[in-house]
């Protein structure tokens, strides 16, 4: 009894003082509310599982099994020899086509992505030392088309190497050749960079989307005003909203990390502790962005649209996770530099694949801290105990 009267009297002079008892009660209430609605757990737990499966088994930037059509108007053994490179290549699935007309039709119907064409005078010109293999690609998917062209180059190089080995061709060493090494990912496996990106998306979704909706709902229904007439302080309301969703976010993080390590065997070259701490920091940023959106809009429709526009889409498109940021115009780069996801992507990709690069990590984490403080402060300003 005396405790209760203590806390009520304490409200007047020190409005921002946090009472642990009230906070605990609020957190219990929020947690129950979260667990009761199954749709929350769908997003918190089920969606990460789906995303893990999609990222691990579905998405791939590794081009393979390209359907191509081969048209050879030259029936000589030499021409067949050159084409063998295409038949044997692990990247191509070859269909023979009797005429260019037929091959063009296949391309129009999207049955094949490229047409390899040897003209009737191919072997004669090859003997003369100047022959060309025509490779027509469908350029609609430009990235794929470019990779395809390089595979074709590889198939032809195979032939040249064999000819040189058999003494049919003079050894010709190019003046300069290139030796490329892809650091951190020698296996050239795109899953390695997709898994860190997966964590970014899951943390963003959990944080911004869930919280923005929940809080906006309370504003819209007026239940927050009901809370305002109780002794709880604004800080307590904000913290109590954050804690349960933070928990859900950690569950998502744990699932992603376990899947990354054991299912997809992505190397973790930095320290696991740092990965977890950085992710927690980003989760906090993302949760507070969600709270800010809901406090600013106070409307579920607007909050959901804004959460999509401000958190999820930029995290996918502008964070450097998929598309390189060096090549975008200045204004777009400036915008991406404001987004928290950009720094989290950089930090996570580094921690997973490169290791503990302290100077980069300290920079990234410091900027994320600024985001957290800024978003929480703005939320605090927008969540004043006033009746509307």
């Amino acid at each position, binding site marked *: 009894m005396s405790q209760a009267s203590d806390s009520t009297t304490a409200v007047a002079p020190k409005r921002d003082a946090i009472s642990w008892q009230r906070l605990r009660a609020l957190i219990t209430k929020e947690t129950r509310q979260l667990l009761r609605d199954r749709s929350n757990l769908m997003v918190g737990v089920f969606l990460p599982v*789906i995303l893990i499966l999609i990222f691990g088994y579905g*998405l791939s930037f590794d081009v393979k099994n390209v359907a191509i059509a081969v048209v050879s108007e030259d029936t000589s053994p030499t021409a067949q020899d050159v084409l063998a490179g295409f038949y044997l290549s692990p990247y191509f699935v070859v269909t023979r086509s009797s005429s260019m007309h037929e091959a063009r039709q296949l391309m129009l119907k999207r049955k094949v992505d490229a047409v390899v064409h040897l003209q009737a005078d191919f072997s004669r010109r090859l003997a003369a030392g100047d022959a060309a293999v025509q490779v027509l690609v*469908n350029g609609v998917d430009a990235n794929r088309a470019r990779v395809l062209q390089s595979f074709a180059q590889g198939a032809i190089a195979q032939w040249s190497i064999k000819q040189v080995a058999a003494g049919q061709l003079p050894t010709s060493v190019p*003046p300069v050749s290139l030796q490329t090494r*892809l650091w951190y990912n020698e296996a050239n496996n795109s899953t390695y960079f997709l898994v860190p990106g997966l964590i970014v998306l899951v943390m963003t979704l959990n944080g911004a989307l869930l919280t923005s909706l929940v809080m906006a709902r309370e504003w819209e229904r007026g239940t927050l005003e009901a809370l305002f007439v109780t002794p709880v302080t604004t800080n307590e309301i904000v913290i109590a909203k954050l804690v349960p969703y933070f928990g859900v976010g950690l569950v998502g993080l744990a699932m992603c990390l376990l899947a990354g390590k054991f299912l997809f065997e992505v190397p973790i070259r930095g320290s696991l502790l740092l990965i977890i701490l950085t992710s927690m920091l980003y989760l906090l940023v993302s949760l507070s962005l969600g709270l800010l959106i809901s406090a600013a809009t106070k409307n579920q429709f607007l909050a959901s*649209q804004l959460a999509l526009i401000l958190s999820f889409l930029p995290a996918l*498109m*502008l964070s450097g996770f998929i598309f390189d940021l060096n090549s975008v115009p200045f204004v777009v780069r400036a915008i991406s530099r404001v987004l928290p996801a950009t720094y989290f992507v950089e930090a996570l990709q580094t921690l997973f694949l490169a290791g503990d690069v302290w100077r980069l990590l300290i920079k990234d984490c410091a900027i994320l801290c600024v985001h957290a403080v800024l978003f929480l402060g703005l939320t605090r300003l927008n969540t004043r105990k006033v009746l509307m």
Partner: protein
Amino acid sequence: MNATLHRIVVLIRKELIAILKDPRSRLVLFLPIFMQSLLFGYAATYDLDEVPYALLDSDHSGAAKDFVAQIDSAGVFRRVLQLSNAGEIGDVIDRKQALLVIHVPPDFERRIFSGGGAVVQVISDGRNTNTGNTAAAYVGAVVERFNESWRELHGGVAAPLRIEGRAWYNTNLETRWNMIPSLVAALSMLQVLILTALSVAREREQGTFDQLMVTPLRPTEIMIGKAVPSILIGILQSSIILLVARFWFGIPFQGSLLTLYLGLLLFTTASVGIGLALSAFSASMQQAMLYTFVLLMPMMLLSGLTSSISNMPKAMQYLTLVNPLRYAIEMAQRVYLEGAGIDVLYNDMWPLILIAAVTLPSAVWLFRNRLV
């Protein structure tokens, strides 16, 4: 019949007013789509316009200088650092100061002249394999050119066989050209799906849906009245992106607008069908939103927007067959870039009709049979 039509028109008007009366809603439906098509239009490309690189020239010879000059004049590379020993390479890449380190070996000039061939080492940052590979391939192109000009000056045997490559529909192989037409479908779907998903759920939450059900409006009429405004807004959003693609980015439009809009109409109807069914299924706006997101993410990722469907394993490829966005992106790209007509696009159109034919009646059924 006339009465039905009248009731539907009235409901459509009411829905449009409900969506558009709030100035903030109007803003959120039309401004972001414009900004996004600009932003993502610039960002969503796999082409690199600027590759920051660090140079480690251990040879300092005339040939090495020629080689480096060719790199610098290629227009894509920007030299950010000049290294003096190999020990510095690790730090430069680790800290992301440069995407590439190009190492010209100490015997570069000597080996070219002796005919033994010099080997230039390129180390690229593989944290994003896609970017790392592309950047390295660009250096490869410079090396090709260098070799060619070297042979012209000093003689030498060129390989007897070469590739004569040509790309259809997108001669310069710009990835932006296929990205932006896919955004025409993808961006509008996001917002339209949320809009539709909230429409019934909002009325359920506020208790006005029961009132609507006891009016003379039949469930099918309610469905049409709810679907049409969302479809209109979706097509309007697509048009905004289309205008940006054509006039801001100047990507030539090859096909017929009629075909494109027919495709967009089918696609938007199919996604509105999904949204309405979800909405009718949900008890509250929050549920509707969250279910929508659970669907949206896989739909976006498995649509061929960011990575092509043919790279996926077979099982996943089958899964994409129920994804309306997959068909819409293919249609938008093919009409826009290839100028494809309905005769080749019907394969993308009938699945959309099928999806709409399943989801819209399900929504009607759920209106009646799911009382929450």
